[in-house]
């Protein structure tokens, strides 16, 4: 068992390889002190547009995306079983209680209340996100 496996073997925390271009761009772009440079190495030509960059989306567009995402959910196809498991405690009480219930669930999980022993690798979302954020 190597050091690396010990550190990164947990499975739930994604630890991307530090040399990935997308992550490097995320980390360094527009960061660092700005000096009055003589010339600047231009960023033109870098495959920036293919990167999972930050995209600020305006309201109606955003709403349509949420609607689309919601309608893509396979709630019924899954038979509603997963849904019930995830949100059982949210279905009791009013709206305010629902919110705090969800938060409490996270809090409980964070403080070690979660006892899910099943280990499965975190699924990646990047492809889906990129597709969702396009246009």
């Amino acid at each position, binding site marked *: 068992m190597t050091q690396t496996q010990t*550190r990164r073997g*947990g*499975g*739930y*925390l*994604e*630890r*991307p390889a*530090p*040399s990935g271009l997308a*992550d490097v*761009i*995320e*980390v*360094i772009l*527009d*960061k*660092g*002190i*700005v000096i009055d*440079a003589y*010339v*600047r*190495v*231009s960023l*033109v*030509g*870098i495959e920036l547009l293919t990167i999972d*960059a*930050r*995209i600020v*989306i305006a309201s109606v567009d*955003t*709403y*349509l*995306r*949420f*609607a*689309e*995402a*919601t*309608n893509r*959910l396979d709630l019924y196809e899954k038979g509603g079983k*997963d*849904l019930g498991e*995830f*949100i059982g405690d*949210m279905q009791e009480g009013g709206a305010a209680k629902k*919110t705090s219930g*969800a*938060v409490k669930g*996270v809090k409980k*999980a*964070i403080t070690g209340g*979660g006892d*899910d022993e099943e280990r499965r690798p*975190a699924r990646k*979302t990047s492809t889906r*996100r990129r597709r969702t*954020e396009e246009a």
Partner: protein
Amino acid sequence: MTTTTSTEQQHDLDPERGCYVYGVVAFGDDLVPAGMAGLEKAPVRLVRHEDIAAVVSDIALERAPGRAADLLAHSEVLDAMAGLTAVVPVHFGSVLADDAMVVEDVLAPGYDDFVHLLEELEGRLQLNLRATYVQETVLAEVVAADPEVAALRQRTRDLPEDAAYGERVRLGELVSRAMELKREDDAAVLMDAVTPYVAAWSERGGAGGLDHVIDVALLVDTVNLTAVEEHLEGLAEAVHERIRLRLVGPVAPYDFVGGAGWA
């Protein structure tokens, strides 16, 4: 060798060569590892001013615009230096005419600020933490919690894209607001779980995606690095059904030197 301590040379501007600046460190004689290479694989060296120094390498000015390899080299040099000593990262792509200009335009006028920043960053590294929703799970929560959302979804889901525009917008608006409330709550819970372990943190201000929860830079004492990573692994496991955590780093403290952000 890889270090240059003299500041009195190269006053004749070479129209074809410039001095690429990576960052600023407290000067040390053998600080730059032998063989460390930067952009264009040029040797990395120091340009000293009093007890601070700029980490630089020579670069051709007549060259193709920035390439992916340039970004990687910039970050590799800075991250490697950050593993050795405190470093103030300089914005990617900053080139000065020569060593003298590095001293006159950067190190000398910024001396007090650099010394102060270097003290603050001493023994610390940056981790970037991003939390995103497991979209299916959280959207399912929203649908189940709000009968109007469920009804709108039921009415619009099997219609063609361009039909029921108003209802789609209404559906998205409701979902968006519900997600925003969740996001505020969940971000607060996550940050409460993280901040006791870090020396400082800074919102990175990007990632406006539908599944965005938080995107923060954490400044961590190097001696606590392993403990923080283990804590975050535990946190990731605890919240994994609803939220994914992604950790990049340790990297140089790019977000803790007052540079311009995405705003």
